[in-house]
């Protein structure tokens, strides 16, 4: 007899308003609407979990009601402590800071470096000062990959480009992030990858900025050139498939030891150009970006996955 209901706990490291969490929730909503395997999916979220993970996972697991405990970041310690005690429950961890545990502990990874590379091409082509920048929170593998790809994309189309890098050392401090932006602008940057999510200065100074995780065009209509969009849909679908397989066949949970990630071609991300900027971008640049996107998607072009800490020049 096949299950008709699926109950998921979404265990978020920060609040839902943070872009990373927003992208997760948005993807989850799309999956719920799509009803994979005809399942009625219910999701209950807990926010700001990061340092209290073991207790939150355990509290969910002990209710016995939840099929999948879906964590959006590095929860390997908590999952390792619990996975054998709750063999019927499926545990999910995401991104860097984890390691493979197998069994009922699944590990997914989001890499948005491919669209980030294309954004880098925009930046490299559009910059007048030949100085581009990136502002991020902390250096972490799953953000470093994007920043490195962004810089790489720019350099590949414009060898003159110099890159500036600032970490604001806070998960979310818009004021600091804005000041960091001003500082980079003063240092000559006119194309900035905003990973710490504050666009006020970009808007004011009307320089080119790039967003990530979700489409930032509405947030900063005057300055956003393009945004990478993170889509968890293939990952979530894969997890649900794995769960379905285990529940409908005799197979045990058997998670791979390596992280599961999906390339752009499989819908793990997207690139949205701000409609308001479309006219300002020369046609050849748009064409180049289109071409690169297709090449990446059909496998002709491989973008190096560089997760080391990006450095300024």
């Amino acid at each position: 007899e096949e299950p008709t209901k699926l109950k998921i706990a979404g265990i978020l490291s920060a609040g839902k308003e943070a872009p990373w969490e927003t992208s997760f929730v948005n993807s989850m909503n799309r999956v719920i609407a799509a009803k994979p395997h005809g399942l009625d999916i219910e999701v209950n979220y807990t926010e700001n979990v990061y340092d209290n993970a073991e207790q939150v996972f355990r509290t969910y697991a002990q209710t016995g009601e939840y099929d999948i405990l879906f964590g959006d970041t590095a929860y390997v310690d908590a999952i390792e402590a619990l996975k054998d005690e709750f063999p019927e429950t499926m545990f999910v961890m995401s991104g860097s800071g984890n390691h493979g545990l197998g069994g009922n502990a699944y590990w997914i990874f989001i890499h948005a470096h491919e669209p980030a590379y294309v954004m880098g091409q925009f930046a490299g082509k559009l910059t007048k000062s030949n100085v581009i920048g990136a502002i991020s929170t902390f250096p972490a593998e799953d953000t470093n990959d994007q920043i490195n790809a962004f810089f790489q994309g720019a350099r590949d189309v414009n060898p003159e480009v110099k890159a500036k890098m600032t970490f604001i050392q806070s998960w979310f401090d818009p004021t600091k992030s804005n000041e960091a932006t001003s500082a980079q602008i003063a240092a000559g940057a006119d194309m900035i990858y905003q990973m710490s999510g504050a666009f006020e200065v970009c808007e004011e100074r009307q320089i080119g900025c790039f967003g990530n995780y979700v489409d930032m065009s509405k947030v900063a209509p005057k300055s956003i050139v393009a945004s990478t969009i993170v889509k968890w849909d293939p990952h979530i679908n894969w997890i649900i498939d794995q769960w379905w397989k285990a529940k409908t066949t005799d197979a045990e949970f058997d998670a791979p030891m390596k992280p599961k990630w999906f390339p752009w071609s499989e819908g793990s991300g997207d690139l949205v150009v701000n409609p308001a900027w479309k006219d300002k971008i020369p046609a050849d640049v748009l064409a180049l970006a289109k071409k690169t996107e297709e090449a990446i998607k059909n496998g002709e072009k491989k973008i190096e996955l560089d997760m080391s800490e990006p450095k300024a020049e």
Partner: protein
Amino acid sequence: MLDQLLQASILASIAAATIRIATPLLLAAIGELVAERSGVYNMGVEGMMLMGAFIGYLAAYESGSLWFGVFAAALTGGLMALVFAIMTITLKVEQIVTGLALNLLGAGLSNYWLRAAFAGEGKTPVIPHFSDVPIPGLSELPLVGPILFDQRVLTYLAFLLVPVVWFFLFRTRYGLIVRCAGENPKALDVKGVGVAPVQYAAVIFGGIMAGIGGAFLSVGSAARFVPDMTNGRGWLVIIIVIAGLWRPWPVLVATLAFSLLDALQLQIQGIGLDVPYQLLLMMPYVVAIVALAIRPSRGGAPATLGVPYLRE
């Protein structure tokens, strides 16, 4: 690399950033200065700023008016200060502890309310924010014009308040009363002037200023609220008042010094000087400690700061 730092455009950027970073600190510090001059050590500035930032954002979002947001933030700061005043002035509860409790309250309530207000939306909406208002004429001055005279209204307000508060404290009858409350409240009491009303007024003024300082963060410089967005600025304000020897002009200098270090640190990162940024970020605190340790004068603290006044 150093020569990069010394370029005119970079220096101008650092100067302008210093003034922006200084604004919320200065607003709150001026308020705290007056409160401490009246003898009350308000350690709840962080909580008041945070609630001010949140309510300012919420009110601006709901009403569509940024100035209404600022007004609501001032009200919120004032209200929290009223709670603080009732606790410490009327009920004589330890001031440091009450301040900590208010910080906790501010953090908890703003975070909770944020979640409750925007539950399910998954995202807090971005609102418009104040933009720069160049002062005609002055803002066109070469070099200093764009730095000093192309700022937000709240920034002008903050800097204008320094001479105003100086005049109030040292040139008016009420200023003398406020200072007397901090130096020897009994001297006020025996003149038939109630100590409590003076301290209430000073503390509430401090709260209002902290609220506006917080609002500057959420509607003046960012355009949204994020949990814990004050990020320790309330504590810095308390340090600034002490480093500024409880006097308006030195407080201004201390505020600018802290802000300059912060601006410098961001600029150095932006230029790409290969110094670990943690070192740069801790710089203001280290410098402050050293400055406090070697400062020549130790005076300035109101004599009965933090001591509740009892007649008997």
